[in-house]
């Protein structure tokens, strides 16, 4: 479903993604781990269409389409969703308006009737309940004054409402208490289906106890330097990133994934 080949991206002349390859098939959950500053958020922002990053090479094909050629909102309408590492506060716009505008933009694109106010409220309230958000959050400005965890719940709420086909969660678990973590995991697991794919960026193996990934990748210095199964996450947790090497090269003799257990 998603095929990233040799992706290179830079910002202000600084190379960040340096030839990244990743294939994600429908139905799969991929976890991406990697040190701070390695380019995880850059990858997710480039996929979502952020133009502060310049794409210098490579390609991204999504369901046979050139993803990088699509306008930001077209990607979203076609089912790409990015849960932001740092959700943006938008004073003056109520969360209710924002959510409704988003849901209807996507529904319209999919040829579904737009929700009227009543239908939308019924739907959103049900989803808010399942992510543990009080109704008052509908009437507050988007993310404004939300705590870290509340912002992340709001991201999961948007994901649930928009029913994406490809969801990228950029550290949605960071800074969450254990209940919130379960909410995020639950949101992701409810979305799991054979025609959807998920990319979960995280620093913590504990999230992967709840969201069991099919593949785990290590992103370092702008490249995927190692891929494996779920056990790779455990190994990283135990040993850190040191053994993977700092030039983006895989160490000569990494311990075998199986051997570490």
């Amino acid at each position, binding site marked *: 479903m998603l095929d990233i080949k040799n992706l290179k991206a830079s910002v202000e002349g600084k190379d960040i993604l340096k030839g990244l390859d990743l294939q994600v098939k429908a139905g799969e959950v991929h976890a991406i781990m990697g040190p701070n500053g390695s380019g995880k958020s850059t990858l997710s922002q480039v996929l979502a269409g952020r133009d502060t990053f310049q794409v210098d090479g490579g390609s991204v094909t999504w369901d046979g389409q050139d993803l990088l050629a699509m306008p*930001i909102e077209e990607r979203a309408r076609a089912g790409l969703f990015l849960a932001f590492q740092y959700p943006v506060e*938008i004073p*003056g716009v109520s969360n209710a308006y*924002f959510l409704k505008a988003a849901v209807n*933009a996507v529904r319209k694109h999919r040829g579904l009737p737009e929700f009227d106010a009543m239908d939308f409220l019924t739907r959103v309230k049900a989803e808010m309940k399942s992510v543990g958000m009080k109704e008052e959050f509908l009437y507050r400005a988007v993310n404004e004054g939300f705590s870290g965890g509340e912002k992340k719940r709001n991201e999961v709420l948007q994901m649930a409402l*928009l029913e994406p086909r490809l969801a990228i969660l950029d550290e949605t678990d960071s800074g969450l208490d254990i209940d919130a973590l379960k909410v995020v995991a639950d949101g992701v697991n409810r979305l799991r289906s054979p025609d959807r794919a998920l990319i979960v960026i995280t620093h913590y193996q504990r999230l992967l106890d709840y969201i069991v990934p099919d593949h785990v990748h290590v992103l370092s210095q702008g490249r995927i330097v190692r891929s494996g199964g779920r056990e790779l996450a455990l190994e990283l947790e135990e040993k850190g990133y040191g053994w993977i090497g700092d030039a983006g090269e895989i160490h000569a003799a990494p311990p075998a994934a199986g051997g570490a257990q």
Partner: protein
Amino acid sequence: MSAVDTWVSAFHAGAAVQPGAGLPWLAALRREALYRFADEGWPTRRHPRWQHTSLAFMDQQDFAANTVAPDAAAALARLRGDDAGHWLVFVGGRFNTELSDIGALPAGVQLTSLADALEQHPEAVQAAFGSATDGDSPAALNLALATDGAWLRLPRGVALEAPVHLVFIAGSTDASQHLRNLIVAEANSEATIVEHYLGEGDATTLTTAATRLQVDADARITHLKLQQEAEPAIHLASIDATQARGAQFASHSLSFGARLARNDIHTRFDGEGCDALLNGLYHLDGRRHVDHHTSINHAQPRGNSREFYRGLLDGNSRGVFTGRIIVAKDAQRSDAMQRCDNLLLSRAAEADARPELEIYADDVKCAHGATVGQMDEDSLFYLQTRGLDDAHARRLLTYAFAAEALDRITLLPLRKQARAALMARLPGGELLEELL
């Protein structure tokens, strides 16, 4: 032409038929004001309060009446909807009895046209009229030429429940209109007064307006001005308030119309513990220009003032804000806060925001800040990643920027009116209707 001489002859031609022409004090006051205007002429950039808004061009400016008079009844109906309230309508600077609907008033409340008030209670009007030395030369011209306006007197302790709406429709058969509104709120009274300035057509018209408010001890007055004059109009206005002990005054100035609009808004705390809110919002496009020149004079202790101005500037427009705060030597424990934030919607738009602080007391809290910025890229991106297209996202953020100012209007029907006025200006505003 609008050269000074033109106005002097206009004055002489009209003086005899002006309301209150038979009152010697008023005739003298008008003459004095006219001489002042003739003497000073239109302010230019050399004038310290007009550095960003020269009226030198006025000497060459022609004003003309629209060939087709605007449909005042239709304009009023659109604005009023089914609001009961108290409605005074002025067309071309004159009170229109047919369109007005003053409604039932509590005992003792005087709400009439200024012309009527000059006949019914000239002494009270005289006390509130103001002097020829008030403000700058355009204010003097207004005093000399004002044909009408509203008179509102609230007796002690009386609260008007419904807002008083003053509707001024420009550009009918006269090229200019000159309005003077006098409001006297006696101790512990309460009211909301809304001034609507409407205009249509493509003739260049001139409005001068002066509103004077006397807010006695513990009275609570909210004043909202919604300026939606026609595109080519010139609008020169002042709002002057004085506040006695414990008086609360809120001014909301929304400037959406006219080619050039200038609002001088002043309030002075003449007693302890006064409270003032100066809230403003302007939206400009094309080559239009708006200048708000405000001042809050903390002449007495323990006053509290809050001032928030926001501008949305598109095209080649220019928004000017000056916020003067004076805290007198003995006005201890004054608390003043001022902000001016501008959102530039185009590269060619320009914003000026200038605080002018004169603090002579030492036990004072005073904060001020100003920002000029473009649309926030992070917010735009966030909205787009949720499926909103660029145009929708921009409209939403533009609206959101203004919403903060609108939200300070506490009376919901008025906030809705203000919102509708803004939506009508924003391209594709109807898309945001559900926000209402």
